[in-house]
C-alpha cells in the first residue's frame, strides 16, 4: 500500500473539524477501516467518500452511530440489489 494514499486521522479531524473519537467510533463499529503505520493512524484515500458520507449523516442529519450502522447495512443491501437488478435486466434480454 502506498503511504501517499493514506491520510492521517489527525489531518481528517483538522480538515473536517471532527473529534477523533468520532473516527474511533466509526472504526470500532466496523464502518471505516483505520490503518496503523508506525503508531500513526490513517484512512485510505479510497475510503474518503465513505467517511465523508458517514460524517454528513452524523453531523448534518444527527444520525447516531447505531443509525449509521443500520443505514450502511441497508445501503449496501440496496447496492447489492441494484447490481442484481442490472444482471437480471441484462439476462432478460435473452428472452426478448
Amino acid at each position, binding site marked *: 500500500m502506498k503511504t501517499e494514499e493514506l491520510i492521517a486521522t489527525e489531518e481528517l479531524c483538522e480538515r473536517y473539524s471532527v473529534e477523533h473519537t468520532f473516527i474511533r467510533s466509526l472504526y470500532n463499529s466496523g464502518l471505516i477501516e483505520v490503518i496503523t503505520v508506525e503508531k500513526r493512524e490513517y484512512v485510505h484515500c479510497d475510503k474518503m*467518500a465513505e467517511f*465523508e458520507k458517514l460524517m454528513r449523516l452524523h453531523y448534518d*442529519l444527527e444520525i447516531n452511530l447505531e443509525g449509521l450502522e443500520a443505514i450502511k447495512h441497508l445501503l449496501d443491501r440496496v447496492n447489492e440489489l441494484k447490481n442484481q437488478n442490472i444482471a437480471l435486466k*441484462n439476462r432478460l434480454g435473452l428472452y426478448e
Partner: protein
Amino acid sequence: MEFIDYYKTLEINKSATKADIKKAYRKLARKHHPDLNPNDENAKKKFQKINEANEVLSDPEKRKKYDEYGKDWQHAEHFEQQKQQRSQAGGGFGGGSSQSYSGSFDDDRFSDFFEQMFGGGGRTRGTGRSPHFKGQDFNAELQLNLTDVYTSHKQTLTVNGKNIRLTIPAGVENGQTIKIKGHGGPGVQGGPKGDLFITFKIANNTDFKREKEHLYSTVELDFYTALLGGEIMIDTFKGKAKLTIKPETQNGTRVKLKGKGFPKYKQEAEFGDLYITYNIKIPTNLSSKEKELYTELQKLRS
C-alpha cells in the same frame, strides 16, 4: 421563471417558528438526502429545493425579504434599491446564520428565482466543518455499442471540460460502473482528488444475445439437413464458422461453440462460449408429388 413557495416546499405554514422550520427541514432532509438515496435524481432535485427553501426561511433577513415581496419578487431588487437609498443602509444579504447540509453532490445549484432575488452572494454555506477535503467525485454515462466492447480500446472523454483518455476494457457489461481514480474534482487544501465513475450503457447492435461472457444465437436449419445431417456455415461474433449437423437433429437443439463467445472482462485472451439453438424450418407449399412422398414416409412410420 416562476415564483417558488418555500413554505410549501418545507411543508409548513407562514407562521412557522424558527424551530418549526428547522424541524421540517431536518425531517425532509433525512428523507431526501442524496446520501440516503444514491443515484436517485428526483431525490437529489427535491433535496436541492428543500436546501434552498431552508436557506431562505432559516435566515431572518432573507425570510423577511421573501415575505415582504412575495409574488412581487420580480420587483424586489428595485424596491430594495429604493429602500436602501432612502435609509442609506447599504449592504445586502451576504451574511446570515442559516445552515445548509453539505455533500459531494451538486447541492449548491440554487434556482434562478433564488439568484434573482438574493443574488449569487446571497447564500450562506456550510455547517462549520469543511465539507470538502477530497475532491468531488464525478459521474458520467458512456453509450457504446456491443461491437465496441468486443475489444479493448482507447477513448477520449470530455468530463467537466477536461479531456480524459482511457482504455475501455473488452467485455465491459451494460450497466457496469468503473472507477477512474483521481479524475474527479481537485482536492481542497491538499486533499486527494475525487474519482470519476463511468457507467456503461451498451446497446446491442447485433443479432446475438449476450449474458456476461456468453453469446446466444438462433440459426435456421433446413428440414433435410436436420433429418439427414450435413454441414452449415454460421455467423459468429468475429466471423464465420462451419458446423457439422448430426442426423436427426431435433428442433430447439442447442450446441456450444467453446471460446466463440464474448471476451471475459479483464481476463486477457479468455472468451466465453457461443450457444447456437437450431430452429428447424418445416417445408411449406408442398407440391402434390411431395405430399405423396411424405404420405409414403408416414405410412412407413405408422
